């Protein structure tokens, strides 16, 4: 890795001012934060001006009706003196980053440690904390991922070994992915509910549907990756199909498997979150919908941040597993 990125750094070092020469990703994140803080001002200007007017500050078009029809930037420039509260308003349209972080702290650590229903006082996770909701989502994600991955590997093994399955199932697997599955989400939940299945399973079904396809595609490629020479060697041993599968095809498909598992687990998380929208029984998706009903934007952003962190964590975990496995198998130094 170090050698690969080295020439780029050297070629680039002269052209940039010193403070920008931090690792580029950090620079980009800082730039995004700056844009966010600036964007907060025009996004919230109307609410802030109304509040300022009530507090007795002179506001440029004095009537709220006039202000409603004006552009946000025009209002900002005419009232630069009254914008002090932009980054601390109560129900912002766009909360500032620090407001989201405060909400995140309040609804995770603070709620669990000091809340009446927190884990310290009651012994169970508080149902008002994001930790609890994240666990609900994670359960569905894992179950769906497991079903999807097993189904995907099974289908791939079938497709590689049977020409009929290859020709008849593969086109439909592709078509199945062009169907916007989330359109089916409320449907699947209602159907499963009416036959008495509820809770984790319906969400897991949606997760599984989203995660099986990358696994099928990756595994079919992986199982077919041994070259003709290796297959011929197995034939000279007169190895049965099962041994070819376990001793040659499966081991050589492992890198492909992990590449698709990383995509699949991210898709599986999206599936779980979408599956939580129709049933309001906890989970990050339910939390987002609740936030949107009650105008608690900071709550939505906090739930989004937790979802983002979960996605990063899950992909990272699979990548770590991949490194360990490949190193054990001698495929990676």
């Amino acid at each position, binding site marked *: 890795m170090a050698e690969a990125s080295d020439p*780029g750094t050297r*070629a*680039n070092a002269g*052209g*940039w001012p010193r403070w*920008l020469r931090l690792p*580029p*990703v950090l*620079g*980009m*994140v800082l730039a*995004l934060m700056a844009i966010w803080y600036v964007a907060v001002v025009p*996004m919230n200007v109307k609410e802030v001006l109304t509040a300022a007017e009530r507090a007795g500050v002179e506001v440029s078009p004095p009537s709220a009706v006039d202000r409603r029809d004006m552009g946000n930037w025009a209002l900002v420039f005419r009232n630069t003196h009254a914008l002090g509260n932009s980054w601390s308003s109560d129900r912002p*349209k*766009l909360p500032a980053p620090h407001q989201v972080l405060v909400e995140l702290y309040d609804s995770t650590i603070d709620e669990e440690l000091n809340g009446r229903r927190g884990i310290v006082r009651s012994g169970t996770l508080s149902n008002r904390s994001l930790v609890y909701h994240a666990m609900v989502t994670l359960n569905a994600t894992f179950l769906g991922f497991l079903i999807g991955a097993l189904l995907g590997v099974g289908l791939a093994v079938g497709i590689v070994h049977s*020409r*009929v399955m290859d*020709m*008849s*199932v*593969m*086109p*439909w697997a592709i*078509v199945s*992915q*062009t*169907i*916007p*599955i*989330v*359109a*089916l989400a*409320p*449907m699947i939940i*209602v*159907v499963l509910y*009416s*036959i008495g299945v509820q809770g984790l399973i319906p969400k897991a079904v949606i997760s599984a549907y989203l995660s099986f396809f990358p696994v099928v595609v990756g595994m079919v490629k992986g199982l077919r990756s041994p070259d003709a020479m290796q297959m011929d060697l197995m034939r000279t041993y007169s190895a049965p199909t099962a041994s070819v599968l376990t001793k040659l095809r499966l081991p050589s498909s492992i890198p492909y498997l992990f590449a698709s598992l990383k995509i699949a687990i*991210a898709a599986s*998380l*999206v599936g779980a*979150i*979408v599956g939580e*929208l*129709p049933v309001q029984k906890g989970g*990050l*998706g339910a939390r*987002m*919908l609740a*936030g*949107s009903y009650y105008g608690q*934007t900071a709550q*939505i*952003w906090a*739930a*989004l941040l937790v*979802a*983002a962190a979960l*996605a990063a964590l899950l*992909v990272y975990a699979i990548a770590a597993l991949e490194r360990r496995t490949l190193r054990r198998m001698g495929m990676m130094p």
Partner: protein
Amino acid sequence: MTLVIFAVLLWVLGFGLNVMLANGPARDTGAVRLAVPLIFGLTILGMWELIVRGMQVSTVILPPPSLIAASFAENLSTLWGDFVQTILKGALSGYIFGCGAAFLTALLVDRSDYLRRGLLPLGNFMAALPIVGTAPILVMWFGFGWQSKAAVVVLMVYFPMLVNTVAGLSETTAMQRDLMRTYAATWGQTLWTLRLPAALPFVFNGLKICSTLALIGAIVAEFFGSPTLGLGFRISTSIGQLDLGMVWSAILVSALSGTAFYGLVALAERRMTFWHASHRGDR
């Protein structure tokens, strides 16, 4: 019960026919390649109909295909309105705008090594995020109309498209770029004659991924608030009325338009990247 036995018979018949076709003498002709998946699909549809009728499954749980078809034919005008609202206004406009913006950003990013090394990991990270979650926020900002749906779609397609285009633009080898330099080609000429064509397979890969994402974004955004038409609205209200025929018709519309959308992009890809290794084999 007899209907269920018929279903099993149908399966044996359909699958047997497929086995015969797939291993028969005509196995590599185009007709067989088309026929096998079609027979498989029709067999499944037939079994669905027979089993649902044979086991007397309540239509609330799973309506038979014939009922869905009838409901589809009855509500054509309503469904057309939903199609225009969700697919044409919401998904398509967002798709064009989002992919176009991502493409232009990629050209910009490509000119600066710093931007590329900063934005690419960030873009990869964002592409894996559940961006669907921003739907409630965007609906709050842009209102219930199709504009908010288009905004969700823009956000969803932007990062996958950006990452793919940037990866595609760095696809040329040093040798090819050196050749362009010996011709004294300008940046624009190099881009137009060498790097864009080389990037096309990646660009189309991004466009294909985004075609599905666009529909998902547009439909999910409607769950958070919409005017009284649109596929997402139709699905959520029809479920409330237990009008499952209508629900499945709306799903059918979204499935058909999703497949058609993807198919069009794939067709354009085949036309424009006919030289690529993955297309040369199947002429």
